């Protein structure tokens, strides 16, 4: 037992170097991720494998439903599976974030008693978990669908990755921004659910920009999500349609949201309701 050894890393926070702070933050986020994996999905049955299985079932189900309908949006050549997989993955990559972040403080408020655990860490742990899970699900289903012949493998994986990363940053922006506001005002969370479906539907997930009239398309291109989604699809089946996107627009939008979100997160106090 290490009874009378003093902890050297636990000195004055104000004199912590930047590097030390960074190391502590990584440690805390890792601890939170390990914890969240169990608290979100329990330890029985599939346990935290659910974090991968859930989006996989949803994507597979939608692909199946659309296959039955037998119509593809962008022309006869495009595999419904590829269309549904890219669309649905994009949709959940951005719409899961605000919900995950919005409830992060409420679920973990008591952890803020530990000085190193900060609100931003609670947000980041959940964001990293979500991105990893959805990315894993996309990759696994791409391999699976290509293997059984539901779709052709992506023609340009790097381009697809590019679009995916842009969408992920937009998701982080939305998580920070909507999540922090929803932490303070619960009704924002309730509003977000219907809105996210409507936005996700028209802005990318269910449409190819090619298939909408020019006037309407120019309007839709104001939605950041469209650009990442089009780029992802360009990487998957770009030889079959004309993509429309500008990732720099989505990035500028995302970093704006991240910045505003960080400002909001700084003002979140976990204890306003529980003080004595």
């Amino acid at each position, binding site marked *: *037992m*290490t*009874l*009378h*050894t*003093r*902890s050297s*890393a*636990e*000195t*004055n*926070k*104000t004199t912590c170097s930047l590097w030390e702070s960074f190391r*502590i933050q990584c*440690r*805390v986020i*890792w*601890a939170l991720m*390990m*914890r969240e994996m*169990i*608290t979100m999905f*329990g*330890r029985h049955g599939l346990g935290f494998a659910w974090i991968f299985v859930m989006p996989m079932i949803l994507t597979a189900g939608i692909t199946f439903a659309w296959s039955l309908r037998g119509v593809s949006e962008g022309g006869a050549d495009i595999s419904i599976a590829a269309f549904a997989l890219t669309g649905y993955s994009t949709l959940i990559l951005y719409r899961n974030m605000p919900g995950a972040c919005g409830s992060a403080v409420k679920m973990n408020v*008591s*952890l*803020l*008693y*530990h*000085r*190193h*655990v900060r609100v931003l860490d609670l947000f980041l742990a959940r964001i990293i978990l979500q991105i990893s899970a959805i990315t894993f699900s996309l990759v696994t289903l791409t391999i699976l669908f290509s293997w059984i012949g539901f779709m052709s493998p992506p023609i340009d994986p790097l381009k697809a990755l590019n679009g995916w990363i842009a969408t992920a940053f937009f998701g982080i922006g939305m998580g920070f921004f909507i999540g922090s506001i929803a932490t303070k005002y619960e009704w924002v969370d309730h509003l977000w659910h219907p809105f996210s479906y409507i936005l996700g539907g028209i802005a990318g997930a269910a449409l190819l920009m090619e298939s909408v009239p020019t006037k309407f398309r120019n309007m839709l291109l104001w939605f950041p999500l469209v650009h990442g989604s089009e780029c992802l699809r360009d990487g998957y089946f770009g030889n079959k349609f004309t993509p429309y996107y500008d990732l720099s627009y989505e990035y500028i939008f995302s970093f704006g949201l991240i910045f505003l979100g960080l400002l909001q997160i700084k003002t979140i*106090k*976990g*204890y*306003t309701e529980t*003080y*004595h």
Partner: protein
Amino acid sequence: MIELREVTMRYPVRGGHRTVLNRITFRIERGEKIGFLGKNGAGKSTLVRLIGGGEAPTSGTIIRGMSVSWPIAFGGAFQGQLTGLDNLKFICRVYGKSIEDKIPFVEDFAELGRYFREPVGTYSSGMQARLAFAISMAVEFDCYLIDEVMTVGDRRFSEKCREELMVKRADRSLIAVSHHEDQIRNTCTHLGVLVQGVLHRFDNLDEGYDFYHRHASE
């Protein structure tokens, strides 16, 4: 040493602000054992939370020249689905301590048997309290915070906790909040009395209690 300089804490309430702590300046030396007194809502827990660093003051500075624990035996952070072991792992990861060499101590001290590896949701409140105290002792600090929980389990276990904290760690600082006068008298050598947001320091317990009783109704 821990130093509070002009620390003020305000909370928003309907139609304005409530000042809970008003420009508090206070110093706690290494090894000092201080009890905070004040009526309900006087700001004792807020003060403990600020010293622990769980929350930042509205204004003022807190200088921590020594490591400060989280409120000891605080079980609120336990989540039903996590086992006792999961909770220990979480704490070790957050504080950057190795997990393996803490397991035997916590497992033994908490007296949970096989429940140590079962979800906390299946524990009785006594078991949760024992686990919380044992985990608090797994990480070493220079200063321990105690917020209103010194009665952990039965008499025998309380005695064991006392031994662990007050005897084995007699050289550490202690900041305790309690309404039980005998507990404070047993553990503390100094008092801080909170009256209307102002902290009064007493190095003599009788004087402090006298002051507290005279101002308890304010």
